[in-house]
């Protein structure tokens, strides 16, 4: 009897073996990309394919630098993602707090509206935004890449869900009895309580903006300004380069992935708990 319950709780060898196989399968493409980025262009074409790293990563990296402006693309990605993360968190915390804890006419309708827009694909807004920004003379600029990321409906939804439970109503009532204005209550009660959720929302927004490809590709297509993702596209389509030169392309891919790998090492635990708390949407 207790042995049965026990067997559910204590995983056997097979569980570890299956999980290890899954993790190895997940990591392998990344490893192989690194291997391809460390051998010569000629070696990538030979059979059998290389499976252990070679010593040519620096050479390949130098060729990446010749081909694309890697550092400015990296800087651009950092700028755009940071602004997006900061802005989404600021707007979402304020609005999410109001929806979670304050009573006002129309709040239910407005919240339902926000939830509905979660289902709308971004492509739907693509064309007018492109036209709008080119009318304003913004196409090909970082501003145009950033603007659509200033607020997200998901951010408000997420902060509301979190703050409903995170702040006791009595705390707000008590502050009000003490004569605190609403804005002071928001600052002294809501913001401290929201801090963990703000960090998670910032992290995931940062990653969403960083990995976004379609919008920057569309708005930067005739521009020298690039993000890391569109720079990879440039690397791929450069004449006689990416498609025929896997060493160059994979070296660039790995270089572009390193920043997020570092972020993952630093914040992986928070990413895991954020996803498990329902912090994110696909």
């Amino acid at each position: 009897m207790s042995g049965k319950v026990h067997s559910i709780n204590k995983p056997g060898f097979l569980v570890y073996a299956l999980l290890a196989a899954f993790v190895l399968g997940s990591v392998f493409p990344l490893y192989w990309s690194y291997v391809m980025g460390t051998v010569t262009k000629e070696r990538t074409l030979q059979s059998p394919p290389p499976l252990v790293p070679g010593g040519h990563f620096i050479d390949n990296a130098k060729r990446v630098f010749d081909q694309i402006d890697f550092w400015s693309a990296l800087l651009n990605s950092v700028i755009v993602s940071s602004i997006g993360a900061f802005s989404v968190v600021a707007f979402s915390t304020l609005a999410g707090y109001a929806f979670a804890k304050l009573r006002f006419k129309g709040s239910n309708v407005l919240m339902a509206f926000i939830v509905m827009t979660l289902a709308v694909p971004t492509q739907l807004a693509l064309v007018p935004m492109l036209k709008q920004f080119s009318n304003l003379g913004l196409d090909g600029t970082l501003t145009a890449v950033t603007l659509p990321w200033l607020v997200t409906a998901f951010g408000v939804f997420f902060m509301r869900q979190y703050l409903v439970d995170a702040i006791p109503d009595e705390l707000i009532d008590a502050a009000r009895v003490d004569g605190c204005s609403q804005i002071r209550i928001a600052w002294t009660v809501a913001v401290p309580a929201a801090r963990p959720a703000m960090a998670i929302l910032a992290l995931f927004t940062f990653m969403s903006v960083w990995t976004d490809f379609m919008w920057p590709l569309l708005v930067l297509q005739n521009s020298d300004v690039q993000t890391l993702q569109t720079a990879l596209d440039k690397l791929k389509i450069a004449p006689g380069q990416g498609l025929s030169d896997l060493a160059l392309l994979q070296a660039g891919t790995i270089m572009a992935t390193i920043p997020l790998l570092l972020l993952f090492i630093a914040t992986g635990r928070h990413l895991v708990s954020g996803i498990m708390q329902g912090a994110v949407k696909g």
Partner: protein
Amino acid sequence: MLKTSPQASRSPQGPSALRQRLSRWDVKYAPYLFVAPFFIVFAAIGLYPLLYTGYLSFFSWPRFGGTVGDPVGWANYVHVITDPVFHKALVNTVGIFLLSSVPQVIIATVIAALLDTNLRGRSWWRMSVLLPYVVAPAAAALIWSAIFADKSGLANQMLGVIGIDPIGWHTDRFASWTAIATMVNWRWTGYNTLIILAAMQAVPRDLYESASLDGAGSGRQFWNITLPSIRPTMIFVIVTSTMGGLQIFTEPRLFDTNLQHQGGANYQFQTLTMYVFNTANSATDPYPRAAAAAWLLFLLIVGVALLNFVITRAIQNRGAR
């Protein structure tokens, strides 16, 4: 107002009455002040473009034209719906979507069940399955494109070892769908695993204990307790992966080896979002036609998401009975 504080009733006039009124305004109107910044920005970058897409889809707008041209009724929609490339893109999108979402949900559920045990190094395992998620889709597409290269890619070389002829990953329609679906599955399976794992951990443990007292093995427990309990999460995962899967763009775009970016020489893996993108760059009425295609894509997503929801509920209701 029925309730007033004692202090207010004692001094009905003077500065404290003014303060009282200010405070009431504060309570009443401050919430609007808090949500207004979001809605103002959202109206400009989200809502306005959305509505304008709908408006635009009923007009002509020549390439390089300054403004909207004549109203054309449903002509843009008719053009898109009768476009053979749109048909191909529709079939491709649904095919890639099925090849990515179905295995993804099944594998994620299995891995989540494996993780929902008393593992050693629990957080390490959880982080490990999430690793591919931090690889940007563009990077993932370039990595897998190399693996699925037509002549001497790693996939074909490995198949050669076991005596299978090289597969035309880019030229064959179904093979190209498989390659693209693999990229999507690689990046998202671990992520969905964690969402499902969270739901599994919320299942009360004593349900399992009493089931095993009744002699139910772990397989039956999984089928009769775990799956019904995590139903809302499964629906969430399936609906969100539907919305994501039908919008796929980055992977097929970067998988393409020709520079027209039409999704293979024969449009064999052009997706609907690629169609919208390419139409916005095309020669005749680019914007209105792209707008019409975008609205059709939206309707498809809503339709499939609803269908998913209904089917998942029906299946799981039957399973629960």
